């Protein structure tokens, strides 16, 4: 049986308070997984630990069988991280940015150049390939960041609120690209506050509250759990209300 794309066990992290509380989570390879939760639930902290941007206080993270603590570089080679704030340099062009990312991930130059051209074309950025990113809109910057995440052909893509601030057209392009990658067997884990997106795109949904996984499953499984036909929004609000701390 192949290793899961992401296996988290007993993960904990505290800052001034406990943010992630002994989390266990498994995401299968080739799955589109949506991580939902109210503000401050710990979603971003979890994903930042998976991406290697934060050290866990306790617990283990394995990406396609590679433990991030024992071999962080090998694990990072398989992962792409896209945050809600695009990580792009104002004074590089999209092509130069992709060349830089390809250099960091040591992608063969010829392959990276071809892939970069395809991605820029796919995301509608080809006419702007040689313009400095400083003049781009938020949506264009997010698409450049997404192209950067895909240029090294990751096996696991982690996205934290990738659709924030995007117009309908840009959001559609990003969603199409992500669904295309899932069809190719890539695993996508995404946090979002836009529940319709999770409802339409995700195969499984995990709901986080107070740093714990309070529910998980397909949309139908979650509906069954509540015992009625509801929208994801109703299910989400019910679950969060059930787990709200006592006043």
């Amino acid at each position, binding site marked *: 049986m192949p290793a899961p794309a992401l296996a988290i066990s007993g993960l904990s992290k505290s800052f001034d308070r406990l943010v992630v509380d002994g989390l266990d989570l498994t995401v299968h390879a080739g799955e589109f997984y949506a991580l939902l939760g109210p503000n401050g639930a710990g979603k971003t902290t979890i994903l930042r630990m998976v991406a290697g941007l934060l050290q866990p206080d306790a617990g283990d993270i394995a990406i396609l069988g590679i433990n991030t603590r024992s071999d962080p570089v090998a694990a990072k*080679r398989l992962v792409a991280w896209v945050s809600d704030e695009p990580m792009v340099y104002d004074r590089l062009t999209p092509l130069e940015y992709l060349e830089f990312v390809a*250099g960091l991930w*040591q992608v063969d130059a010829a392959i990276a*150049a071809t892939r*970069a051209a395809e991605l820029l074309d796919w995301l509608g950025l080809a006419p702007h390939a*040689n313009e400095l990113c400083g003049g781009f809109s938020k949506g264009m910057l997010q698409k450049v960041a997404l192209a950067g995440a895909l240029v090294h052909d990751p096996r696991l893509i982690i996205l934290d609120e990738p659709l924030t601030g995007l117009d309908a057209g840009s959001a559609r392009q990003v969603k199409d690209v992500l669904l295309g990658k899932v069809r190719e067997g890539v695993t996508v884990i995404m946090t979002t506050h836009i529940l319709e997106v999770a409802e339409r795109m995700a195969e499984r949904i995990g709901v986080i509250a107070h740093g714990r996984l309070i529910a998980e499953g397909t949309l139908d499984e979650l509906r069954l759990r509540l015992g009625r036909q509801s929208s994801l929004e109703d299910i989400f609000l019910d679950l969060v209300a059930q787990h709200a701390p006592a006043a």
Partner: protein
Amino acid sequence: MTGPTPLQPGIGLGWFARHELRLAWREWMAMMSGGRVTRRVAIAVFLVVAASLIHLLAYGLLAPWVRQGIVPDRATLVLLTGSGLLFWTVMLSQALESITRVYYARSDLDLILSSPASSRQVFAVRTAAVGLSTVLLAALLASPLLNMLAFLDGPHWLAGYGVVLAMGALSTAIALAVTLALFRFVGPKRTRLIAQIVAAIVGAGFVIGIQAAAIIYYGSFSRFALLQSPDVIAAAPPPDSPVWLPAKALMGEVPALVLMLVLGLGALTLAIVLSASSYGAHAISAAGLSHVRSQRRPSRRGFRRMSQRQALRLKEWRLLQRDPWLLSQTLMQILYLLPPALLLWLNFGNSAGAFVVVVPVLVMAAGQLAGGLAWLAISGEDAHDLVATAPLAPRTVLLAKIEAVLAVIAVILAPLLLALAIASPFMAMVTAICVTLSAGSATTIQLWFRTVARRAMFRRRQVASRAATLSEAFASIMWAATGAVWASGSWLALGPAVMAIVVLALARLLSPRRG
């Protein structure tokens, strides 16, 4: 702690002035103390001690001159006017940079320009604030000399503060005129760049000019050699010439002082009145630049085959080359390399003795340049998450960034070192070693005090960590002293070298601990 009472509704010059004052006060307090009372006390004690020491130094410098008796003859007028011009060029340079920011800094401008408030009033207040900050800085620099002259020779020297006020106002007015002329003739896209170049040239130009003249005519590196030379004094206009108006005002002549104040403040008022109406339009055109897409020439070849370190170095060089504010921060340091270059040129083939003065200048410049570039490369990482999630060890990232910085320093200094090597291989070796140590120390300090910041925060790096800034400056000075003494062939060079190492050790102790 946070200043005066809440703002009352109402819009006017006074209202805007209070708003600006409150923001400036809070920012200054935050920068100086970081919100901690203990740090505020420590800084107050440090300022008092530093001011006392500088006043003592000024006393030592001025007491012999005052004992000789200061008379308003040509020699005195030349010396005062020349020294005043040095101050004034620095003021003009600062005003030029600050005025450019009034037009280009975004911060709250979108809010204000989209409100029904008058952009003319905002502009008037912000321009006056530039004038005030220019005057305050110059007054701070001049205060030890003026206070000691007043103490030793009489209170009439306190008129110097009035001269500083007049010259600050005049600098701001000229800076405003230059900026508006640039907007008109070269457009908002190039105004910022050209204004920075002009500011750097003005700031360093006069100092370098008289240093160069001193080198050419007197073989001396001292800028005062020219101001005290008999030829210059003989060629100067007679004492009743209007050229000496600022010097006479400085010496306490009331009519001259009043005239200076009328000229300076009048010029500033006129400049504000004439330019206020166009401020909104220029600020909006400058704001539009952030939405303008800048087309680069497409690369003919495909992606390069490169290692991770090469990719990081290439990225750093591209970003340094395109940084819009870097020029103003480093150009002056590069311009200061011109006099030693001139000295090298003139003394080509002569004895190595003349080059002793070149060594510390190069070492100092290398340290200062390396500090700025290292902050940009190490701390000013706009895509920190991207680099942190890349499959490479953090050590590799830092190594590549250090290599990028040191390579830039090497490229800038290599021609001078090469010229020095042809003239005196020993001097070149001493300089190369001390330049490496100075640049390496500055880079190491930036590494120890590294933070995660946007590159746009570059101007605030010096206040973000005073310990880093001070240790960087002291280490550069100590390595420069090591170079100077070593170049003169003395083993005493070990003294400042040991001091530099002590400074580095202290910086390491003060630096934040990393897990």
